[in-house]
């Protein structure tokens, strides 16, 4: 009955309106900053959204690895970004040194050009995925498995150690060299523009004013990501392995009692996550054609933020978080401040965590870690 005696001022004071007001002001400022410029130049805005989509889909592939591993072993796998780097490097060597993308055409000269290139590109991606998966399982067996019962921080420090090792070992002159390397795509870039219908942009010509550009890269990135995401969802939701993965994530001792080989399932999780990171490495390198030994850090970090934003441990969360992250990064760089875009990405993360402490799709924490 005490509530009825509260005066208006008391109710005002009791409410959480002050914090909400701060959030509203921040959101309004961001919307105003972006919207004001977007209305003046809608084509540019749509172009930015498309660029953000391309980035977001790559982040989604990396974020899935973070989120799956976290879901099952509660480990922030800092080495994941470097596995992504290895994926890009493998595809660089496969295309640049071994010409893997031309093998189908050489083996079956009768095939149409498009089909042989498609098979070639797919085999490059598959090779990167396979090598990354093997690498991740090796790392897991050597570095993380002995620490399964140690304090969680030991495993985290080990993950940081593995990350340093992959970076600086990669920087050695006989491995990947410490230089920026120009990436050679397995296919030629074709760009279209939308202005009174879809037209193909001739090579060497400037795009027309007010046209919205997109390339075959964007289509490939979206197609590959959606395909991999669907297969991952199928594996996790419909197969026995997926069922075992979900059970192990929920309760490891009980899963072991039910006859699940938990260690094997953890290895498979690492392999799946790393395979996705390997594919992401190839896609990222085709979109931003430059590879070097540190390239995994920033995309890895962004993807990690995306996974946390979506609720770490949740697969749809990682996807949604990555799309938000991609858009936020491109819009912040385009409309607010280019040098501040990392800071803006992290500010968004902190604000979302303050409103939803376990991310967008996250469940409340079950136990204190």
């Amino acid at each position: 009955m005490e509530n009825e005696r509260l005066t208006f001022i008391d109710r005002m004071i009791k409410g959480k309106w002050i914090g909400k007001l701060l959030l509203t002001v921040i959101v309004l400022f961001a919307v105003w900053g972006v919207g004001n410029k977007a209305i003046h130049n809608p084509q540019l805005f749509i172009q930015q959204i498309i660029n953000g989509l391309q980035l977001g889909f790559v982040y989604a592939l990396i974020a899935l690895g973070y989120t799956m591993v976290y879901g099952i072993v509660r480990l922030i796998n800092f080495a994941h970004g470097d596995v992504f780097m290895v994926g890009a490097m493998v595809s660089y060597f496969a295309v640049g040194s071994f010409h893997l993308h031309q093998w189908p055409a050489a083996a079956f000269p009768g095939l149409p050009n498009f089909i042989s290139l498609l098979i070639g590109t797919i085999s490059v991606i598959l090779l990167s995925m396979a090598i990354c998966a093997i690498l991740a399982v090796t790392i897991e067996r050597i570095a993380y498995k002995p620490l399964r019962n140690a304090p969680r921080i030991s495993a985290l420090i080990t993950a940081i150690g593995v990350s340093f090792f992959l970076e600086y070992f990669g920087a050695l002159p006989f491995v990947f060299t410490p230089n920026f390397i120009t990436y050679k795509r397995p296919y030629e870039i074709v760009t279209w523009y939308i202005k009174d219908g879809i037209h193909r942009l001739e090579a060497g010509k400037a795009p027309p004013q007010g046209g919205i550009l997109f390339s075959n890269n964007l289509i490939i990135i979206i197609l590959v990501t959606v395909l991999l995401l669907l297969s991952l969802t199928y594996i996790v939701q419909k197969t026995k392995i997926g069922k075992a993965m979900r059970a192990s994530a929920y309760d490891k001792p009980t899963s072991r009692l039910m006859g699940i080989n938990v260690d094997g399932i953890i290895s498979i999780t690492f392999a799946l996550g790393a395979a996705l990171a390997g594919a992401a490495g190839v896609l990222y390198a085709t979109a931003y054609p430059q590879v070097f030994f540190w390239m995994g850090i920033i995309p890895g970090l962004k993807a990690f933020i995306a996974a946390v934003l979506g609720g770490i441990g949740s697969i749809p969360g990682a996807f949604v978080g990555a799309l938000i992250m991609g858009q936020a990064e491109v819009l912040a760089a385009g409309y607010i401040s280019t040098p501040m875009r990392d800071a803006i990405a992290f500010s968004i993360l902190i604000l979302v965590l303050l409103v939803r402490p376990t991310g967008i799709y996250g469940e409340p924490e079950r136990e204190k870690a």
Partner: protein
Amino acid sequence: MNTQRSTLIFWLVFLGFLILIQALIGTGLLSNFWATLLKIGAVMSIVSIGLNLIYGFNGQFSLGQWGFYAIGAYTAADITYRWTQLHNASGLVVVLLVVLLVSLAFFLVAKIVSRLRGLDALSAFTLYLIGLLIAAILAVMVGKGLIAPITNILNLLPAEWAIQIVFFLAVILGGCIAAEISYIFGLPVLTLGSDYFGIATLGFTIIVKVLLDNSDTLLGFTEMKGARGMVGIPKLTSWIWVAVFLIAVLVVTRNLLHSSHGRAMISVREDEIAAKAMGINVAQQKTITFVLGSFFAGLAGALYAHVNGFLHPNTFNFIKSFDPMIIVVFGGLGSVSGTVVAAFTWALVLEGLLRLVLPQGFETWRFVVYPLLLLIMMLLRPQGLFGAFEFPYLRQVLPRPFQPRELHQPPSPADEPLNNGA
């Protein structure tokens, strides 16, 4: 060993160490290279002790230590830079006023917030933010008038004295600014769960780094020169200064851990709910520890800024922010002695020894060997070098458990039927 004797031994060993190293540096037996490494080791000990308080003793997984270190470094560097290069005390006066007025504002806002029961952390944060902004603007306005008189007073002193006083104040103020920022940042963020807290603080480190990258254009501190790196900071950090600050930090940490606050801190790490049930104000305890740890980080940053006389935002990027965490885990979580030993080992081995041991042309292998050593260490001793071991002086001397006499008396036979009957 009784407490007094171990205290005496601690002071003798530390003073002996201090004087020995100072003598070696003074006579030139210890080259400049190794002297710098020793200073870096002491600086890293101070940051890592701060982190050990936050993570090792209070259980809050913080990656923000490096951001506070950066704040301390740039604040102190700006103060001494203005004193030596621009010949005025503008930095000192303004920062001093900001620290004083912001603490006053925080004190007042805390009074208001405690009146308004049921206020969530975000709303309280907003109130503190408003207080901070008003206090900072006021400080800058008032400070302008005070610059000239204070500069004149300091100029009356001998120049060597004046610069040491400015340096000492700059170090303390660097710590204070870091502490105040950690207070206002920790208020909403400390309510998050452990991993999410870690990620939010990692975000803080990255935001600080990005701000420092643009400090000349965005923040308007032209002398910090943004991403080009700040030069012209006087090299004032002598071995004596770092050693004195290290000893002060050690004594404060030790005494804090032996007090009721220290035990409350540890109980929060062990079990928050049980601590709450014992009447401990968990939120307040977390805030105190976070602020104190960040204060140490600010101190260390301020000392670091004056070691090489050069600051670059890349020193404060998030990859390096794992260094204190690595040192704390390497030394042993919840062991102050382990942290100090690990910090010196880290500085001397990684920068010095590996450089000398590895043959010519293999310098790049340093960072290949380092993670391998780290991995082997973690696999062989996951609890860290020292575990929870402490040197005698730093060891927790628990009071003898309170044993009420009547509980230990054998129950009289007459009571038993009564108990059973009830």
